[in-house]
């Protein structure tokens, strides 16, 4: 087994990005993700990479757009209010089919909100974040090890599907320290014949663009893009099932909420309640299959979230509302404790799925 290093989640993302071959990082300071920028500022100059503190999140995402156009692995990171500013750029990246990695270490909102952990950007992330029809691949790590692994996965998926990958973490994941194994395998970036790197007078000029004024043409681009999204849904959906074989009550949560919920599931089992958990790892594509399967067996679903209830809508869709789905949540920077989740499990077990 490889040696492990004790790292903050934010640092694990930064180190994993470097391992993935990312040599261009652009960011703007915002709590609770600034360690990523600090790490890059220290490391990039020593390995021939570029760290640049942009004048705004808007500028940072457009610098990402520039490097992505030139065909190189590139990333930016921010936290909720900053990601709102990047929304325009996210839409343009999607419209131009450019691969990149965006990190959102979420904090409580709306507005300036707070600086404590939150998952209230779920809608923004899974529905695209900007204007127009598009998706990002949204990855939700639940450990510092996963912060590293999903960062690499994010770069690979972005390149394979010419999409933006987003790491949707939260303040806890960013700030907490855990041992990480960094002997991570990386698929190198594929050839990018579409990139604008100069024609060298050897080929027709490449154009990176999201404008098409002919509606028939623009419609075709949208339909083609969604064909690609269908392949992502079929091949790249990731989730973890925990004690779901015989579960009566299905807890579902991602990120830090999943860590808390796992404890509650263990405690419920000790008390004789058959609880289990589905942890989506990709939030888009959402793991519909395990929920659809579980909807025929379990009595009730509980969506545990650090928000006013956002993922719960996808759970209801994935289960076709066959069984009740209840919300167990905290918001504004608060985190549910295992006790709260346990009480929700016990209430569900008592109700037996009748609401």
């Amino acid at each position, binding site marked *: 087994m490889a040696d492990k290093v004790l790292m903050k989640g934010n640092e694990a993302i930064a180190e994993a990005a470097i391992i993935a071959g990312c040599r261009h990082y652009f960011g703007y300071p915002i709590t609770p993700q600034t360690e990523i920028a600090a790490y890059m500022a220290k490391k990039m100059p020593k390995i021939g990479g570029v760290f640049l503190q942009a004048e705004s999140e808007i500028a940072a995402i457009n610098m990402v757009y520039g490097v992505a156009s030139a065909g190189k692995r590139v990333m930016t990171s921010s936290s909720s209010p900053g990601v709102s500013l990047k929304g325009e750029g996210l839409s343009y990246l999607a419209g131009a089919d450019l691969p990149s990695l965006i990190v959102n270490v979420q904090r409580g909102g709306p507005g300036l909100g707070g600086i404590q952990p939150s998952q209230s950007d779920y809608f923004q992330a899974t529905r695209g974040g900007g204007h127009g029809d598009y998706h990002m691949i949204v990855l939700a790590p639940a450990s510092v090890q996963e912060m590293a692994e999903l960062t690499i996965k994010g770069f690979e998926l972005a390149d394979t599907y010419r999409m933006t990958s987003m790491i949707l973490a939260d303040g806890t994941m960013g700030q907490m320290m855990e041992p990480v194994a960094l002997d991570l395998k990386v698929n190198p970036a594929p050839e990018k014949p579409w990139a*604008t790197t100069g024609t060298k007078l050897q080929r027709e000029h490449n154009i990176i663009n999201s404008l098409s004024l002919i509606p028939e043409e623009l419609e075709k681009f949208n339909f083609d893009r969604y064909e690609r999204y269908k392949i992502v849904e079929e091949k790249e959906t990731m989730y973890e099932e925990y004690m779901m074989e015989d579960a009566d009550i299905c807890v579902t949560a991602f990120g830090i909420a999943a860590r808390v919920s796992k404890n509650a599931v263990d405690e419920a089992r000790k008390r004789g309640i058959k609880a289990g958990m589905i942890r989506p790892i990709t939030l888009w594509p959402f793991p519909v299959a395990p929920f659809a399967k579980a909807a025929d067996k379990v009595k009730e679903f509980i969506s545990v979230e650090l928000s006013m209830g956002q993922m719960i809508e996808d759970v209801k869709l994935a289960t076709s509302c066959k069984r009740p789905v209840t919300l167990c949540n905290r918001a504004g920077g608060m985190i549910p404790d295992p006790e709260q989740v346990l009480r929700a499990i016990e209430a569900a077990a008592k109700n037996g799925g009748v609401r």
Partner: protein
Amino acid sequence: MVVFEKPHALTDVPMHYCPGCLHGIVHRLVAEVIDELGIEGKTIGIAPVGCSVMAYNYFNCDMIEAAHGRAPAVATGVKRADPENHIVFTYQGDGDLASIGMAETVHAAARNENITVIFINNAIYGMTGGQMAPTSLPGQVTQTSPYGRDPKLCGYPVRVCEMLSELEGPEYLERVTVADVKNVRNAKKAIKKAFQNQIDGKGFSLIEVVSTCPTNWGMTPQKAIDWLKENMLAYYPLGVYKDRSAAKEEAK
């Protein structure tokens, strides 16, 4: 015998610009410079949002279409992706560069980003049908200043070259026009220098080209040229606003 050819750096695609528009002249000047410097194969151009949004169809080099005002940030990314092998220029109008993209413009200049910016100032938003621009003159009638631009209500036009010249960062700032032959020749010299500066690693060069918009000014092309000379050049004097290398030479 061919005595006048299209520059290689221009495509053969018919341009969409209105009759009398000066974009065609500036496109040609940029293309001639790219040809003369032999840099087409390593040049990447960034098109703006505005009338010249489809510039990506007209230049033969690799092209990127940026979000409104963000071209200098996109250019920063492209340049830094491969500084040795990329020559990067942006081509932007006044709304794009001096209004929505002002922050990106100022900071690219402040960083002395090694790029070339071609800035077309015609004092109006053309593509959207003639609204007041950050560079519209006091009293100028536009769709969104139908009684004439009132400085008491919406302030004064921005002089970009003068403003940027206060920064330590930029290498070269010059305001030119393409309103007549003599000035076209001068504009080409300035554009060439702006690209040469980048090749020489000197940093940020911006050429502001005072231009017209016959369609949205509601004038014939000739009348628009006259209006430019009488009004625009009075508010936007031509000249070099910063030339760091020349200043250094002089200091020796």
